[in-house]
């Protein structure tokens, strides 16, 4: 291999010219990656850059069309995860691959060749797992059922799975999603311990701040290509942002996204533009609103208010009632009790159409499932929700000429990249689908805008676009509620942040008082220390 002539020890892992296509889409276009020994190697890039696809190829979940993988100087063929495991590769996926009904120990030993006669010795393995937990600072009860564990603990189980199998290379895909800042610190500590014991870690992330905090070396990807590999000590966030985004003009427009949280890596956020919306009138007043989840169990019970022009954030670990809260406030989930009024008009109990006409706009979390009609055109998706109104009507019929004009002007105003206004929505990328949903929400000139994880899975320019539009909506007097699992996003955009835990609001902070650790403390359900 080419690496043999390079100075220094042979790299542990080398991927060379990896190409992977999904139908006509080229996901990876000849990507190289070299991971040295005892290092945390960051794989940085915006969503859709191909980071996860590259690692799925390494782990045998995807078969590459072309390319060579070399481990310890030996070329290896990885056909499925079994091959990857036997070569010492472990991977922690973003959506944990665990059997919910199994214990921690059962999840970890699954797939190994433990002898069964007369029965499996799970107790002995539990002890071994407890020992690994202590050694790497990944403490978790080996006998607990994983369904009962928090996200942070479930992630430890995933890491232990790889360590238990004697992994030499551990891949973590966006491991900080849904962790509190405290849990992130503890994770980074464990990664250090893992590297100190002679293993290497590949850390997939789209956050520059995280790579600067934990990585030794960084490979940056963009559009399915590797665009650079740099040592952390020799680089700056600005250089990384440039690599991630491509052209300099764009970098300046999206700085906010790529440097999210950088201004305050620890401690308090910026105080310059302290809480200002304090005297605008309250447009949205929610009191004692109770919503049940799909199993009929109470899941959200909140009182809150949002002033005109204010962006209020809801912070919390996923699964603490955010979905139910968002849907109840948007009028698409029936409320069991309480009231919700917009500009003094109580909407609770009315049909969804009344909420829409009343000026409520909703950008749902699952944009593919809840946000669009996938096989309908952009025109039809943009009319959706306004079909009853006078705007697109002529007599008893819909006026498609006007609808089409509206779609074409929206496509321009929201920079939707599409062949034409008649293109079915499902053929567009996630970022463009989100632009359609935003365009639809804004065309109603909403009084109350609810955004749920609006930038999840979006590429960098689209994320910046969402931020700009959200601010513009607030500036025009809309009351905005931003429900997000991304603390950087919340501290960046919001005038006020409410923390939700188990469906209840457990704390409130105003701009100028943000402290991510304090927020993390509340998100974990711990009492306010005051």
């Amino acid at each position: 291999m080419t690496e043999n002539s390079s100075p220094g020890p042979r790299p542990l892992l080398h991927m060379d010219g990896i190409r992977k296509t999904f139908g006509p889409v080229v996901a990876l276009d000849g990507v190289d990656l070299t991971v040295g020994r005892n290092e945390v190697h960051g794989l940085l890039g915006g969503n859709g850059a191909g980071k996860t696809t590259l690692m799925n190829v390494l782990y045998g979940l995807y078969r590459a069309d072309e390319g060579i993988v070399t481990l310890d100087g030996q070329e290896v063929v990885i056909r499925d995860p079994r091959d990857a495991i036997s070569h010492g590769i472990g991977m922690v996926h973003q959506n944990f691959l665990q059997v919910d009904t199994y214990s921690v120990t059962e999840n970890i030993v699954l797939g190994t060749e433990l002898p069964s006669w007369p029965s499996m010795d799970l107790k002995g393995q539990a002890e071994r797992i407890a020992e690994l937990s202590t050694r790497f600072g990944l403490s978790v009860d080996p006998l607990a059922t994983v369904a009962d564990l928090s996200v942070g603990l479930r992630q430890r189980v995933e890491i232990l799975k790889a360590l238990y199998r004697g992994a030499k290379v551990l891949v973590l895909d966006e491991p900080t999603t849904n962790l509190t800042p405290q849990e992130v610190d503890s994770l980074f500590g464990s990664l250090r311990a893992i590297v100190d014991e002679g293993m290497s870690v590949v850390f997939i992330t789209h956050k520059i701040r995280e790579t600067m905090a934990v990585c030794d070396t960084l490979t940056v990807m963009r559009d399915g290509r590797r665009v650079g590999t740099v040592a952390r000590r020799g680089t700056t966030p600005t250089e990384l942002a440039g690599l991630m985004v491509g052209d300099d003009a764009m970098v300046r427009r999206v700085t906010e996204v790529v440097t999210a949280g950088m201004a305050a890596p620890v401690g308090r956020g910026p105080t310059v533009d302290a809480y200002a919306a304090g005297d605008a009138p309250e447009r949205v007043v929610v009191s004692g609103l109770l919503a049940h989840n799909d199993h009929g169990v109470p899941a959200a019970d909140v009182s809150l208010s949002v002033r005109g022009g204010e962006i209020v954030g809801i912070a919390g670990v996923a699964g603490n009632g955010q979905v139910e809260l968002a849907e109840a406030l948007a009028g698409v989930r029936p409320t069991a009790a309480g009231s919700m009024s917009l500009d003094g008009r109580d909407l609770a109990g009315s049909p969804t159409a009344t909420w829409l006409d009343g000026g409520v706009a909703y950008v749902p979390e699952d944009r593919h499932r809840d946000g669009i009609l996938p096989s309908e055109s952009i025109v039809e998706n943009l009319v959706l929700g306004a079909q009853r109104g006078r705007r697109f009507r002529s007599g008893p019929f819909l006026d498609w000429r006007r609808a089409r004009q509206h779609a074409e002007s929206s496509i321009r105003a929201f920079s939707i990249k599409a062949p034409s206004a008649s293109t079915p929505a499902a053929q567009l990328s996630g970022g463009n689908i989100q632009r359609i949903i935003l365009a639809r929400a804004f065309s109603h000139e909403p009084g109350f805008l609810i955004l749920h994880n609006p930038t999840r899975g979006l590429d960098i320019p689209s994320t910046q676009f969402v931020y700009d539009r959200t601010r513009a909506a607030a500036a025009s007097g809309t009351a905005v509620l931003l429900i997000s699992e991304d603390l950087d996003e919340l501290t960046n955009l919001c005038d006020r942040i409410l923390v939700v835990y188990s469906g209840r609001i457990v704390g409130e902070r105003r701009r100028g008082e943000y402290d991510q650790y304090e927020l993390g403390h509340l998100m974990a359900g711990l009492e306010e220390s005051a």
Partner: protein
Amino acid sequence: MNEVTSFLQLVVTAMVPFILAAQGTMIAGRAGVFNVAQEGLMMLGASVGFLVSLTFGGNLVGLVVAGLGGGLFGWFLGWVTTRFRLDQFVIGLALFFAAAGLASLLYKVVIGVTLQPPLIPTLDDLSVPGLSAIPLVGPVLFQQSAMVYFAFLLSGGLYWLLYKTNHGLKLRSVGENPKAADSLGVNVARTRIWCSAAGGALMALAGAYLPMTYTGTYTEGMVAGRGWLAIALAFFGGWRPQYILAGSAFFAGMEVLALRVQVGGLDVPHQFISMLPYVATLLVMMFALRWARIPAFLGRNYDRESRTSH
């Protein structure tokens, strides 16, 4: 032998087809394959078991061939739903019709239409030395045919396999979260195909038991809905072998009770009495389904490169 003992003895005898068919449903289901062809496979097992026993003059060979036939159907269900990811329910129904049709066809080809159908000997009772002398328990549990002992031992064996062995850990993971199993190197397709084959074999054995225990011959309609009830029993038993064994006593009990009441000459139309097991099942299921735990991926196919999460 008193009334209670003979009643219980009949119940244990009647448990066997329920145990075999429901454990077969369970073992395939725990790997994620939801077989709905029980009724048809039991008919096929009854027909093939009878015809082969008649031709070769031995019940054992009849059982073996019936089991192999059912296994082939189960294997096919596992194969097409993993290899081609065809809908499990649709294929299962198709297999039900195919097996039911084949059962009648084979009987007509070999025996034809006769007024006096030929008979095979029913299975002998094997008394377990010592144990069969225990009062009540002895006659009920230990003066039975070999298939009764087989069904009980099988249930114990399945419990051990599922919960005490590494194979069981892998098998259950395939039905709970095949993606997780796959990511740890468990062969999802192979596990599903073999569990489905084993399940089909047990269903056919359940059918073959009927002519060898009750009638000595094959008749249309002799399965009488036991296959459909086996699906209910699998849910009722929470897809766990120990509860399925216990639940089969309830289903068999209702069956024997209905017979007893008919014979006892109560002044009720016998159709109402015959309805009893099904009505009881319906009522029990309404409550059982509330707490029943079912494998998360029951009836759902798995595609590794599918980019949508589940």
